[in-house]
């Protein structure tokens, strides 16, 4: 396959857009529907990434890829889901400030563990030995296929989130976010719903972390900074926290615009790429967040439209 026309930066940029869309969609369920402020997205994502990396590299499996990848990705998903259960249990009945601090603390703990558990994670030196679970030719071809795999996974997350909006579970999450005491007074087990949401969303975040680990093939603790959470959150808020497509639109307008258009296609001085651009990126995201909150606080797509959805679902 001749991929000379395809820029390697573009493949990675699109992969990042896909991954952030996935994270923002999951965050949408937590923040947009149930109004749980999860500032620890990077913690669940990073835990999945390192759980995958450690199980893939450190364990001597009696079988090779693709089974090795599948088993390790499953481990990453389960470990992140288990972390979601514990963290969710801890923050479920806290107010928004408590949830924010709790999840941020969890993400910090994951970063510290990844740094200090050097024998397992490689610590600050990083961890190599990861690879694609297939080999179809050049690195670029493998990366392109991985982009398609990730797109498929994110497509599945999008379908799940889409269906959640159309299901009693989604309505329960919206009710929890809107008025939890009232929901409880109607006999709803809101605590269980929040825990269920946290487990599912955290597990999927962990899976996305594993997919990222394969794409970069080298795990670096520098990836565990707040930038991951910030990008997912800014994209979601910009697009509209309450809408499914808000996550997609917002991430395309932020990560897509910056990581693909600005970084790959604008004629910027070469020295900017190492120092200035990463800082500019965070500044631009912060500015975008301020502008949106000032002029369109509900995001580009605005408030959710249950009236339209109910008409569509039930014809009245």
């Amino acid at each position, binding site marked *: 396959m001749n991929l000379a026309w395809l820029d390697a930066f573009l493949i990675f940029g699109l992969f990042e857009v896909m991954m952030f869309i996935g994270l923002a969609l999951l965050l949408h369920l937590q923040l947009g529907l149930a109004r749980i402020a999860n500032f620890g997205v990077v913690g669940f994502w990073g835990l999945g990434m390192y759980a995958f990396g450690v199980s893939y590299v450190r364990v001597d499996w009696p079988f090779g890829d693709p089974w090795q990848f599948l088993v390790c990705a499953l481990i990453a998903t389960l470990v992140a889901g288990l972390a979601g259960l514990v963290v969710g249990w801890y923050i479920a009945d806290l107010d928004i400030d408590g949830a924010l601090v709790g999840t941020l603390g969890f993400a910090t703990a994951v970063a510290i563990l990844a740094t200090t558990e050097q024998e397992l994670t490689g610590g600050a030196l990083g961890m190599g030995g990861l690879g694609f679970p297939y080999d179809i030719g050049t690195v670029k071809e493998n990366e392109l296929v991985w982009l398609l795999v990730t797109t498929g996974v994110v497509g599945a997350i999008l379908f*799940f989130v889409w*269906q*959640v909006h*159309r*299901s*009693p*579970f989604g*309505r*329960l999450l*919206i*009710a929890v*976010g*809107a*008025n939890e*005491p*009232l*929901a*409880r*007074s*109607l*006999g*709803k*087990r*809101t605590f269980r*719903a929040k825990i*269920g*949401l946290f487990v*599912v969303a955290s597990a999927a975040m962990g899976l996305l972390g594993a997919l990222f680990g394969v794409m970069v093939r080298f795990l670096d603790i520098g990836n565990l900074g707040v930038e991951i959470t910030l990008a997912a959150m800014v994209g979601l808020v910009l697009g509209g926290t*309450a809408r499914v497509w808000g996550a997609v639109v917002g991430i395309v307008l932020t990560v897509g615009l910056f990581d693909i258009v600005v970084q790959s296609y604008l004629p910027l001085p070469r020295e900017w790429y190492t120092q200035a651009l990463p800082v500019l990126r965070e500044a631009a995201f912060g500015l975008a967040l301020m502008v949106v909150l000032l002029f369109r606080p509900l995001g580009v797509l605005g*408030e*959710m439209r*249950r*009236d339209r959805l*109910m*008409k569509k*679902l*039930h014809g*009245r």
Partner: protein
Amino acid sequence: MAAEVVAGAAVARPQIRVERVAKSYSGRTVVDVDELVLGDQPIEGLIGPNGAGKTTLMRMIVHAVPLDRGTITLRSPTQPELLLSSMPTEQIARHGVVKSNQLITDFERLTILDSLLFAVTESAYEAPHQLFSERTVFERHRDEIERLLDYFGLTDRTAFAMSAGEKKLLDIIRCLILRPRFLLLDEPTAGLPDDVTEKVMDALRELAAAGSTVVIVAHDLNVIWKLCDEVVFMAEGKALLRGDPQSIREHRTIVEKYLGEGHV
């Protein structure tokens, strides 16, 4: 004839027994009930001046307010006695003890239809893996929802409850659709037009006739006199008197403390 509050005799309908229950805020006692049985009669009223502790007592029954001391139990002809005061709010509701709210409260992002579907959906369908059960839930409860909304004149099911009156009414309909065994209503008709108030009262009579118990807190005494079979008078956190509506409205203490001379 009004009488001092005493435990009611057992009857064949759900009863709530409140024993040695107290609640204080910052040293001020707002509820201090030694013994009170709600549910001697199908529909009972709870009246008293502002600050008498009526709303707090109702909230304590559904454990929206924790008790400082005492116990609250549910007795029912069909199941063993339940200690409500040790249960979380949602479990109490699942045992059929449901309360409407004094203040206007709603799920702002849910439509009227959504709100009622939410109330009636069984927990089994409200799980992450139940992504395709919406149609099942809707088909199962469609007739009941439509009957109630038609009856109360909320014709646009997919609209949001906009006015305070609509939200109040929706709160009551949410309670009714749960078919509660024991329904507590806090100022249910405040802000409702007269014709809707009449419909609410008829619906409550129907619920009581079907074997449920209804307890109403209201400052609109016309509702109390018209609807209730028995009335409890509260003041300063205590249940002072109970009796039939006629005896209560003529009782000297109540006229002096609450109704005012010339009320009757």
